[in-house]
């Protein structure tokens, strides 16, 4: 090392910072990944007595059409607001006015993607119809 390139505290700290940022970022990302895995999905039971048409159940929207049941996430495909009302046979999002039909397809509004379809499953212990959200 010659005099003009003397290691100053500032330079050392900067270099250390740059080098340490990599393991710290890795630790950060791994930590968050593991937490994602561990945090369980919520189980919601589909009620046995369902009316024809749309039922709102907080995080999900159920569409019963004859014998056929379809479940969607109530999270609007635009920016995630909770859809909890319908007007004129359309599901309507209160935040920016997106409208969806009963199949989850967007009709009007900033949303362009379909509402997320959630698969129906059977609870292994009780045999009831459930979904995971």
């Amino acid at each position, binding site marked *: 090392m010659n005099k003009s390139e003397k290691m100053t505290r500032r330079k050392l700290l900067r270099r250390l910072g740059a080098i340490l940022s990599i393991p710290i970022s890795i630790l*950060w990302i791994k930590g968050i990944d593991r937490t994602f895995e561990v945090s369980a999905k919520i189980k919601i039971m589909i009620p046995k007595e369902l*009316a024809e048409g749309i039922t709102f159940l907080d995080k999900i929207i159920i569409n019963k059409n004859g014998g056929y049941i379809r479940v969607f996430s109530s999270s609007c495909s635009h920016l995630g607001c909770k859809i909890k009302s319908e*007007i*004129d046979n359309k599901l309507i999002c209160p*935040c*920016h006015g997106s409208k969806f039909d009963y199949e989850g397809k967007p009709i009007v509004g*900033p949303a362009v993607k379909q509402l997320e379809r959630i698969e129906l499953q059977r609870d292994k212990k009780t045999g009831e119809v459930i979904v995971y959200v």
Partner: protein
Amino acid sequence: MSKKKEKVSINIYSKLFGSTFGHIAFASFFIALITGIILSIFFDINKPFDSISMMLITNPSASFIRSLHYWSAQIFLVFTIFHIWDHLRKSTEMQVKKGVWIRLSFSLLAVLFVMLTGFILKADADSIQAKRILETLLFDIPFIGNYLSFSLLGNGDDLQLVYVHHIATTTIIVWIIIVEHVKLIWPNIRSVLYFLLPMVLLSLFYPAALHSNNDPIMKGPWYFLGMQELFHYMTSPAIIFLIFAFLLLMIVYLQKFNKLNRRRIKYIWFSISIIYLVLIIIGYFFRGENWEFKLPWQNEYLSMSSINPIDNSANYFIEFNNTLEVPIILGEREGCQYCHSNMKGFSPSHDPEAIGCASCHLGNPFTIDMNLAHSGMIKIPGNLGTANRSCGNANCHPGISDRVTKSLMNTMSGVVSVNRFVFEESSNLDQLNNIKNISNSAADTHLRNLCASCHLGKEKIEYGPINELSRGGGCNACHLNFSKEAVTDLQRLSVSKTDSSILKFHPSLDLNISNDHCFGCHSRSGRISTNYEGWHETQLDESEMPNEKQYRLLKDERVFQFVSADVHHQRGMECIDCHNSFELMGDGNVYAHQEEQVKIKCEDCHFSESPNSVGSEMLDAESKKIAKLRSMNEENHKYLITKNDSIPLINSYVNSDNTVYMVGKNSKKKYELKPPNFICEEGKAHDRLTCNSCHTAWAPQCVGCHTEYEPSEIGIDHLTNKETKGNWKEWMGDFIAELPTLGVMVNNLGAEVIETFIPGMIMTLDKSEFDEDKNNTIFHRLFAPTIAHTVSAKGRSCKSCHNDPIAIGYGRGELIYDYEGSWSFRNKYALVPNDNLPEDAWIGYLKNNQGKATRVGARPFSIDEQKNILTVGACLTCHSDSSKVMLESLKDFDELLKRVSNKCVLPKWD
């Protein structure tokens, strides 16, 4: 730097009361910090929304600190922006070290984040939606999006991480940044003291509010409303991110540009800010429910949103009695029930324990101060003007208030269009109208003076039960029921308004819709309510009533006489036993006339083929709910459905052997549903007849009416409840209760049917006093289809149609058949000079269809039809109704004619 130099350099910046914007921003930050620390004592991160609600309700000091914290934060944000503008104006960016400038620029993000986390922490519906939107936005950032979202906002519904970032992380960052670029640790004491005063005043008179679940509008914080507006137009928020990142980088690297470019960048930022400000104004004032555009004075939700100047300032000395409860209703504390506890008289679904008071009556549930609580309250919910905020709000009965508003009982569309037709102001009988929007023409003022109060949209402004004099009332018109105790309570209220705790009984909102609810309006016009019970209106005075058994006095002083009651009424059936929710509340469609909106037909219950039925699993949500509430949702219950629109009749039962019965909705009486008599369906001769045309015992008819305008009289405009100068008046001719006329119309399946008609109207109309310029008298001879609701078990006799001039449309008089084969008609009523027909006739004897009706496609009998009818009438002069010959004639009349004996005299038509 010497003090003198510092003073000079500071003097070039803008000042407000001696403090620069920067100092004001710092002072506000400091006040926010201190109040925030105090507020954390009362705030519970485990139940954030609840702890804030309880602060507002029970703890005036804490609420004050919270408001102060809120206002100091908003002023911090506003003056930070002003401070930036001020410095950019003076181009001070070149006086700052590069590292400091970069950190300053990125600290804008920290400022934004501390404000947003503060907004999210109140955890009401707005905040939770905002958090979801922010999470979604962050997730959209490529590669590190979900990690960022998780690190900044935490996992799931827990606000703990948001709290930590708000009180520690961003606070420390912002303070360090301030210290770094101002070289001050503490704010200027003068700024703090000067600006504490306006903040305290704002907090006292404009307290920070909390979003109640009764408010359906989702709005972010005011500074974000511009973004909310932009989001509405952008399907992908990534664009916004990129633009925002680009603009931020322009500021970060501002120092690298030359003077001209820096100027340009600042102009761009300034213009964008102005546009953003306009968007904020639009987003705040011009947005209603579900993102509708609304003018501020039409925006009924504006008063419910965040900042609301209160009529009187809050009572900071209010005492809280902690032995009384502030219950949690539907996830939210309700202060109403602190004072109004234990009210009785509700139906189970509307009990305040289940839905609270504020969900119907609105007002402010987050307080126990009476004036604050009652501000914005709806005293009588259910009127259609406010129904979509109370009964029809998104959490309760959404869609129903909309359906009712579109239904005929609210729009009175047919009334308006036919009336205008009669007044010759319109030639379109099927035009869709709304009574709310009528003008001041002759026809429309006629309605205002005489008819306009009978629509559901008419506001109920007085407390009390629905009775004979009630008109309108929205949801209350049908669903409001006062018990005796509730009536007594109400009377006590009118005497002394002092103590609310004396009110213990509230009227009920339920499904016990009795005929009394329909009576007020439907004892008018077609008189369905009175007809059904057998009463016919006379022109007598109360003093002229001969007795009280055969005569009845209504509350509006009209005297009615008993004729004969509908057989369904005799058996104890009520209006709602036939008429269902989709007919009465509307099905969302807009109809022109009642026969389009009313779906039920006699044949839906009285049929001879096998029944159309559905099981309970096929019921729609509304029918299912009603069936459940009425305990008609038994297992394996099969319901009849209507032929029109397949509406399930929830009080009908189809047995496994295909027999059917019906149960009264309120009475629970059981009725076996009998098929029609064989004679109803025998042969083809009577195929076009509706059940009504034979089974209507009588219909109220009036002849010889005259309507005139009296300009000097004072009338009432029933739409606005104001007096009018000038009044339309009606003079009645004869009121008659007799068998109706028959005519032809097209039903809603497109088929031609024969239905009952009555004069509607045969009248002269004198418009001369209204349109002062001409001598304007109109004459009309119109018949209107009617469903009289006077059904008789036994149909009318053959001769009552075939040999009766009224039935065919000639008017009263004698139809004589001479045995040489000619029919002749001698009229009873005098001829009217306008068209030389008797006063009560529809058509002339064997004349060609001059008769007009109030429906497109409706008409009297054609000449051929008249001849056919009279030919059978000829047979009936000798053969009795039940003779073999007449019964055979139903099957194939033409064939029968070929076999007539030589004693028969058939009519000769020349």
